[in-house]
């Protein structure tokens, strides 16, 4: 594996990690909202 390929792999891993973290954060907010909405409805 060339240094350029390794650099590309690291960059991809980093951007995927950031996006995954953002999605998980959004899901935390969403599930909290769903919970509140369900509790208010019942």
């Amino acid at each position, binding site marked *: 594996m060339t240094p350029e390929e390794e650099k590309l792999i690291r960059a*991809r891993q980093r951007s995927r990690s950031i996006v995954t973290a953002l999605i998980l954060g959004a899901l935390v907010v969403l599930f909290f909202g769903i919970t509140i909405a369900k509790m208010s409805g019942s």
Partner: protein
Amino acid sequence: MVALDCVMQASETDIEFVASNASLLTGETAANAAAIPADWRDFVALTKPRVMTLVVFTGLCGLLVAPGHLSPVLAFTAILCIALGAGAAGALNQWYEADRDAQMKRTADRPLPAGRMSRESALHFGVGLSFFSVLLMGVATNWVAAAILALSILFYLFVYTIWLKPRTAQNIVIGGAAGAFPPLIGWAAVTGSVAPLPIALFALIFFWTPPHFWSLALFVRMDYANAGIPMLPIVAGEAATRRQILLYTGIMAAAALAPVALGLTGLVYAAVALIGTGIFAAMALQVALHDEVDPARMGPEKRLFKYSVLYLFLMFAAVVADHWVMVR
């Protein structure tokens, strides 16, 4: 989702008819895809985001006209689940069709045929997203909506992509049902059941699909031919396709006016349906009477294809507008 594939293609109607020289999934590209992790943007591309537009819109309309109340958070979640389910189906479709996509100019640059992602990643992503969307729909709204969402994903993958598409020219007629589910899902998310109005909306999309798709197939037929997909113009010829477009437009017109005849909608929808469907029928007649084999000169066919997308947006917007007028 089947029908709505074409939304994505709407901006690509200037497809060139070149013989396919796209790279197949060679050992080199497959190895490259396995060695270097795919970019997150490729996962987004796998969900066919442009296809989602009409899926989300028709699902939202089904949800808005349903009787009852759903909190904004749950309504948002329901629409999100419809979008994610459509994305999952798109990803699984691309996973299964990677080799075929490599042979069509329009699809050769997708993540899998271009070698930017391994097939295994696409499969895992599609299956995971399918389960997530269905489970979230069930937990957030109800299991009837979740079951219809699951059915639409399974129908798109197994009935349309795997079974019908490579085998019969009637692929999009039956397979079109997969793209007709969103209004049913939106309605079911609110009510937990189905009713005549969402079934009529299902029928509208179902019968709209053939004239929409075949008008496209007339002027991109070589692309389909290169990929070995038995679209109607290739199998039955152009004249038969033009007749079928007119025939299905007639059935679609009946489906479009059914809610009016059954008293399910009011004057706003009736006016839009009459005018909009009338224009559609006139354009379909023009296509039926047209006798042109050169795709570059297929003006009526391209106009019908573009108008058909606008038509479906208008019809569903009219259902919602009509509902609001009647409620007030």
